[in-house]
C-alpha cells in the first residue's frame, strides 16, 4: 500500500506549475489536497510518472466577492476554509450548508474545492453543487486561459473536459439571490460516506407561492451529476403542492439512467433518486427567504 516511484515537483508559483504541466502533460498528476489522489496512488490504481504538488501556490486559495454578488473561489481553497467562511455563510447559504456533508473534517482540512471538482467523482457533493449553482471554471495552461461552463465540464466517471496541460485555477459562482430557496438531501449508509444518491433543489418562487424557476440536480445517478430538465419544466410557472411533488418524483425516477455498482443497484438509485428529489424540493419549499436547516 505504498505509491509507485514518481518524480516530484513542488512549484512555488503558478507559472512554474503550468510550465511543468506543459512539459509533462498526461504523464503528470496534480497533487492538491491528496484526499482522492493519494488513496489511488497508495493502492497503485494511479501511477503517475510525475507528481506536481501545488500546495505551495497559496495565491490560489481565496474567496473573493465580486461587485455584483458573484463569487470567485480559488481552486486551492481548502474545503474547511469554505465551510468556515463567513462570507459564504452570508451570501451562499446552499454552499455553506452542504460543506459538512463532504467526508469528515479531517478530509476537509486538506481537500480542496478544485481538487474535488477535477477529480469528478459522480457521488461527490462539490461537482453536483457546482452544477446546481451554474458555476464557471477558469482553466489555465502555460499558453492560454479559458472559462468553461459547468454544463460542458463533467463528461463521465472521473473524466472532465480539462486538458492534460491545464490546471483549474478558479471557480466562479453567479450571485446567489436572497429570495431563492434551496434543499439538499443525500442518502448514505454512514455519516461522511460518499452519497449513494443525492439531490440539490433551488427554487425561485414569486409572491403568490408560484414557482418561477426550478433547478434540480441529482448526483450518484450515473457518470456525472445531472440536471433534471424535464422535472424543472414541470415545476416552472406552477403552484407546487404535494401532488405535483409526487409527480416530479415519478418523472425523476423514470428519467434517471444510473449504473449498478457494489454500493447500490441501478433500480435503487432510480427509486431513491425520485425520493431525494422530492425531499429536496420539499425542503426548499419549507424555507423562508433562503435560510434553512441542513
Amino acid at each position, binding site marked *: 500500500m505504498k505509491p509507485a516511484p514518481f518524480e516530484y515537483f513542488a512549484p512555488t508559483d503558478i507559472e512554474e506549475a503550468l510550465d511543468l504541466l506543459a512539459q509533462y502533460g498526461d504523464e503528470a498528476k496534480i497533487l492538491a489536497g491528496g484526499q482522492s489522489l*493519494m488513496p489511488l496512488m497508495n493502492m497503485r490504481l494511479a501511477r503517475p510518472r510525475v*507528481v506536481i504538488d501545488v500546495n505551495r501556490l497559496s495565491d490560489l486559495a481565496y474567496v473573493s466577492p465580486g461587485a455584483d454578488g458573484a463569487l470567485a473561489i480559488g481552486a486551492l481553497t481548502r474545503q474547511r476554509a469554505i465551510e468556515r467562511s463567513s462570507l459564504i455563510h452570508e451570501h451562499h447559504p446552499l454552499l455553506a450548508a452542504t460543506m459538512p456533508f463532504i467526508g469528515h473534517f479531517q478530509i476537509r482540512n486538506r481537500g480542496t474545492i478544485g481538487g474535488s471538482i477535477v477529480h469528478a467523482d459522480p457521488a461527490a457533493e462539490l461537482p453536483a453543487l457546482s452544477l446546481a449553482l451554474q458555476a464557471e471554471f477558469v482553466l489555465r495552461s502555460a499558453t492560454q486561459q479559458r472559462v468553461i461552463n459547468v454544463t460542458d465540464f463533467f463528461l463521465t466517471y472521473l473524466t472532465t473536459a480539462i486538458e492534460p496541460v491545464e490546471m483549474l485555477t478558479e471557480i466562479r459562482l453567479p450571485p446567489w439571490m436572497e429570495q431563492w430557496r434551496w434543499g439538499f438531501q443525500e442518502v448514505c449508509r454512514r455519516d461522511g460516506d460518499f452519497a449513494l444518491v443525492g439531490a440539490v433543489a433551488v427554487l425561485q418562487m414569486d409572491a403568490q407561492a408560484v414557482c418561477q424557476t426550478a433547478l434540480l440536480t441529482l448526483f450518484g445517478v450515473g457518470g456525472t451529476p445531472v440536471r433534471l430538465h424535464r422535472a424543472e419544466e414541470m415545476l416552472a410557472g406552477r403552484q407546487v403542492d404535494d401532488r405535483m411533488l409526487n409527480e416530479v418524483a415519478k418523472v425523476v425516477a423514470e428519467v434517471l439512467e444510473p449504473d449498478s455498482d457494489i454500493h447500490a443497484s441501478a433500480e435503487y438509485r432510480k427509486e431513491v433518486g425520485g425520493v431525494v428529489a422530492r425531499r429536496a424540493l420539499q425542503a426548499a419549499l419549507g424555507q423562508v427567504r433562503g435560510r434553512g436547516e441542513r
Partner: protein
Amino acid sequence: MTTKRTIQLTVNGSVYKRMVEVRMTLADFLREELNLTGTHLGCEHGICGACTILLNGDAVRSCLMLAVQADGASLMTVEGLAPGETLHPLQQAFHETHALQCGFCTPGFLMTAYAFVKETPNPTEDQVREAISGNICRCTGYVPIVQAILQASRGG
C-alpha cells in the same frame, strides 16, 4: 529523477531534519524515520482514521500526505499528548471509560478528539458522534469513546 529530498519539520516540539524518498508517506516517515510508532496504519487510503495526526493544528490523515509535503510544518502526534508522566485528560478519560480494548484505533481517536474539543469545547453528544465519524473502531462499539470525550471536555 529527484527521488529524495531533505525536509525539516517540528514534531511534538522537537525539530527534525531528514532526507526522505519523495514517495514516502507522512505516516511512514513518522513511524520509520522518527520511530514515532504511535501513529498507526489501518487502511492507508484515508477511511479508518488510525493515522490521524495534527498538522499545523489541523487533524489530517497522515497516510494521505507525503512526508515532503510536511517540510516546514509543525506536527503533533499521540506521543505529544501527555505532558511527561501524567496522562492527558483525554487519555485519562479513555482509560476510565474503557474507550479502548486493542488500542489500535486509539491514537487516531485521541488526535481527532483533541482537535475537535479544541474547536468545540462544550460539545453535545451528537456533535461528538459526528466529529468521530471519520474514525473506525472494531472493538468498543464507540459508546465508551463518546463518553470519554464528553467526560474529558467537561473537565471530568
